[in-house]
């Protein structure tokens, strides 16, 4: 396994023009929820990075997270895997099998010790010595602890790896726990969701490559750029909520007119995720756009949180102020402008300084 080349070298060898690379970076900026004008700064940073080795371990899971990633539309999975990272082990996607597959994992752990990114999907069963999920005769716990030792950081993909998810739901017959319940001495980033939004998975990897560090996280270890606001905050039906227009059943006049689904059990007000803006299926829509309330799949214990169709007891305290700002006062505009420091940006433009990735780091 040779030392990985930089992304710029790799793209140049493939005859990819600078303009194409800029277009790619514009898509990345959109994905990372950064100011759209930062594509040039991202290009400068990404061009210099060496592609990191990625080891992906799948534990007690349904493969939905991998399904989600392989349907990621921005950028394509191929460019993601072959250009941005070196995916050295993923037992569903790799061509090798059996001993050769496990050898690839061991080689990558040795060669890139301390530098590789460890991605994990699925929870880890602890009951009865962890016998409920094993790979190549070894328990998930054993594999996780071994791979975590040499990892630069761990990304827990999906609600199972992040919070225990469905296997952890009552009565939790296998004693399933989250990655963060076991590993305490490594940076862990939780990309929750069942499954998580594919663009969020790739967005976090892109952020790591661009800035050389993990993005800012919320109190549950989730990247703020994607989980900083609730579904309700950014829902296009939010004005209906403000106007008191609620659908009472799934087939009444209100439902047909696209009114708020709060009374039908929508968990949007308490769920932090980017579905309302990033959307699903190539940006086609998200559950509320299809007429069904949010079930809150990116929050801990979502499966045990009561009926998906019972309304939330009361609106979250801060919801009204946030959304009024968003819809009425035009925080649309504030979000558009991004968190970037206006003064600095203007100064940079006036003095013809180039916006760098360090300027974006300060946000």
């Amino acid at each position: 396994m040779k030392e990985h080349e930089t992304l710029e070298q790799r793209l140049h060898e493939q005859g990819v023009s600078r303009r194409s690379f800029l277009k790619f970076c514009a898509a990345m900026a959109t994905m990372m929820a950064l100011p759209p004008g930062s594509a040039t700064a991202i290009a400068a940073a990404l061009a210099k990075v060496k592609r990191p080795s990625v080891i992906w371990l799948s534990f007690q899971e349904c493969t939905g997270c991998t399904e989600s990633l392989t349907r990621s539309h921005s950028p394509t999975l191929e460019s993601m895997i072959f250009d941005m990272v070196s995916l050295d082990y993923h037992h569903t996607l790799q061509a090798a099998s059996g001993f050769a597959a496990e050898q690839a994992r061991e080689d990558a752990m040795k060669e890139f010790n301390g530098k590789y990114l460890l991605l994990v999907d699925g929870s880890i069963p602890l009951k009865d010595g962890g016998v409920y999920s094993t790979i190549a005769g070894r328990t998930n716990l054993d594999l996780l602890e071994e791979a975590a030792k040499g990892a630069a950081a761990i990304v827990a993909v999906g609600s199972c790896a992040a919070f225990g998810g469905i296997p952890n739901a009552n009565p939790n017959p296998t004693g399933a726990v989250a990655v963060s319940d076991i590993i305490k001495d490594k940076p862990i980033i939780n990309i929750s969701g069942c499954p998580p939004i594919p663009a969020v998975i790739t967005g976090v990897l892109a952020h790591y490559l661009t800035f050389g560090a993990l993005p800012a996280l919320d109190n549950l270890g989730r990247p703020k750029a994607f989980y900083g606001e609730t579904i309700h905050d950014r829902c296009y039906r939010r004005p209906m909520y403000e106007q008191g227009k609620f659908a009472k059943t799934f087939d009444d006049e209100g439902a047909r007119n696209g009114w708020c689904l709060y009374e039908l059990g929508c968990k949007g007000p308490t769920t932090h995720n980017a579905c309302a803006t990033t959307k699903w299926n190539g940006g086609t829509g998200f559950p509320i756009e299809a007429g069904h309330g949010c079930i809150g799949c990116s929050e801990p214990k979502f499966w045990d949180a009561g009926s998906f169709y019972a309304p939330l007891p009361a609106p979250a305290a801060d919801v009204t102020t946030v959304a009024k700002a968003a819809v009425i006062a035009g925080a649309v505009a504030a979000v558009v402008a991004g968190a970037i420091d206006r003064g600095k940006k203007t100064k940079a433009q006036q003095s013809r300084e180039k916006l760098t990735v360090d300027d974006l780091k300060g946000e």
Partner: protein
Amino acid sequence: MSLDDISIKVADLHSIGSLDALLNEIASHLTRFIATGETAMIDLKSLPFSPAEYESLRTALGRGEVSARLETIGDSELYETHYSGVWWVTHYNVEGDVIADLIEIAEVPAILHSQPEDVRDGLERLQHTLSQTK
């Protein structure tokens, strides 16, 4: 049962608030662009638009005199709207999915400019060709 038995209702395309906010944002960017030359970009994918509002935005901005197409890692469509200096830039991937949808306030969208690296590469190729024909 025939198609006529299914009642059809025309959706209400009236803005529910976000469209006006965005048009005001564009107006303030244009004002700044005229005064200082500062360009701006708006990421449409980050906004909570209803499908109807998105269509209303297309109608509100209209189409102007110039359009261009990039053919690189999928197509990109760029056109100047009815308001000079306001460009609508949509990048697609090779599968035809939208990977970035932007409003750009500028004389010309940045990505249309020839890139210095590509120009240098081009010159090298041209010189190589010339050296072969001597």
